[in-house]
């Protein structure tokens, strides 16, 4: 059973994952760029794995083509679930 994908819930899932990947919790906010918080392509693949399982969606590598900030990531997932 997939979790409910409210923007707030998605943001929490994303934040929790980014912290697990080693990002500084203090630096994570919607406007932070992934580069700023030292999140790279391997982290995004891991994040994809987490959200696909949590929300029962499919994400492709190309979905991340224009993703720059934490907010972009959250919006992408919310849109996919919606």
């Amino acid at each position, binding site marked *: 059973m997939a979790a409910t994908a409210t923007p707030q819930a998605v943001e929490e899932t994303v934040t929790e994952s980014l912290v*697990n*990947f*080693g*990002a500084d919790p203090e630096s994570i906010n919607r406007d932070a760029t992934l580069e700023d918080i*030292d999140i790279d392509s*391997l982290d995004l*693949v*891991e994040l994809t*794995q987490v959200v*696909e*399982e949590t929300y029962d969606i499919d994400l492709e590598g190309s979905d991340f083509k224009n993703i720059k900030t934490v907010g972009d990531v959250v919006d992408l997932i919310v849109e996919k679930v919606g």
Partner: protein
Amino acid sequence: MRDVVITGVGAVTPLGVGARALYERWASGECGIRDGEAPCADFDATDFMTSKEARRADRSTQLAIAAGEEALAEAGWDEGLPYDPDLIGCVLGTGIGGIATLEGNHDSLRDSGPDSVSPLAIPLMMSNAGSAALSLRHDLRGPVFSTVSACAAGSHAIGTALRMIQHGDAEAVVTGGSEAPLTELSRAAFKRMNALSPSGVSRPFDARRDGFVMGEGAGVLVLEAGDAARARGARILGTLRGYGASGDAHHITAPHKEGRGGARAMSVALSDAGVTAEEVDYVNAHGTSTQLNDRAETLALKIALGEHAKQIPISSTKSAIGHLLGAAGAVEAVATVLALRDRIAPPTIGWEEPDEEMDLDYVPGTAKPLEMANGRPPIAISNSFGFGGHNATLCLQAA
């Protein structure tokens, strides 16, 4: 030919974190084996790296990072690299690579399907992960790769690093080996081939020896071209005088019965070093505590060193820390460098009962002083022999 010196050593072993913990505890007769295995129980990866680095490293790589941290700090590199990064290489050895990562991901695959396999599985389990991690962490941009030759990998790495400096491919090389094989699969696999000690005791060269005790750890050495190291005022711990390698071409796991390949590796190393057999003051043996290795190594020593083999101390670090597989040669080179500095031969712990025709001085009981005829810095050879018939010998001298 340029001489190649050792300016820093680091180790994480079952005797603790640090090269001195390894050497001093072994020399004083302590043993790091517990319940038939030799884990690095004191090791906490996050003491040495960020949680992000730790997540991106199998335990075998984490151990290498920690040992590297110590070696580079001792070499005085912690304030910055002393040479052009393009001229600093990194060569590490491993026998198996990230086997815990492999097993964990195979569990995920079997239990939850292909989508559950981690995207980090490959970069963590690849056998070159150790050299990659040290290169990334310390900005080492010269030749960077890993050697894979089972239990000889660490010594092959160090020998290859020596050649890189002698040949001018690098001014300095960070080298050594690491292994973290204490997993269900490797336990079962080594046990099934009757390689592990059923008694759980590592007593190399003793008549009662019944197999090796598996351990984990890492050893790292900083090698520099001697002229460059002296020019920068580095403190020199010792010299890597020579390296010899050979293949048994005999059997996939058993050593050649007369020690043919091992003897040749030793002879080549001595010849490479320009050292005669009579000048060798100490032998750090491969000494695994298996029936076959210890007998063949004894014969090989008699071939390579002749009568002199009976006159010098020969001991096995594995009596104190078990067998660290691809890390063994590196950790043993570290211990040998420190023992030579103190002019002592640490003991083969637990050696009590002589075996037939194995009549060398295996240094039973306690460490003994090295005696050099003319007061020159002592010279040692350190042996490593791997499954596949891979043999590597290093010739080391105190500064």
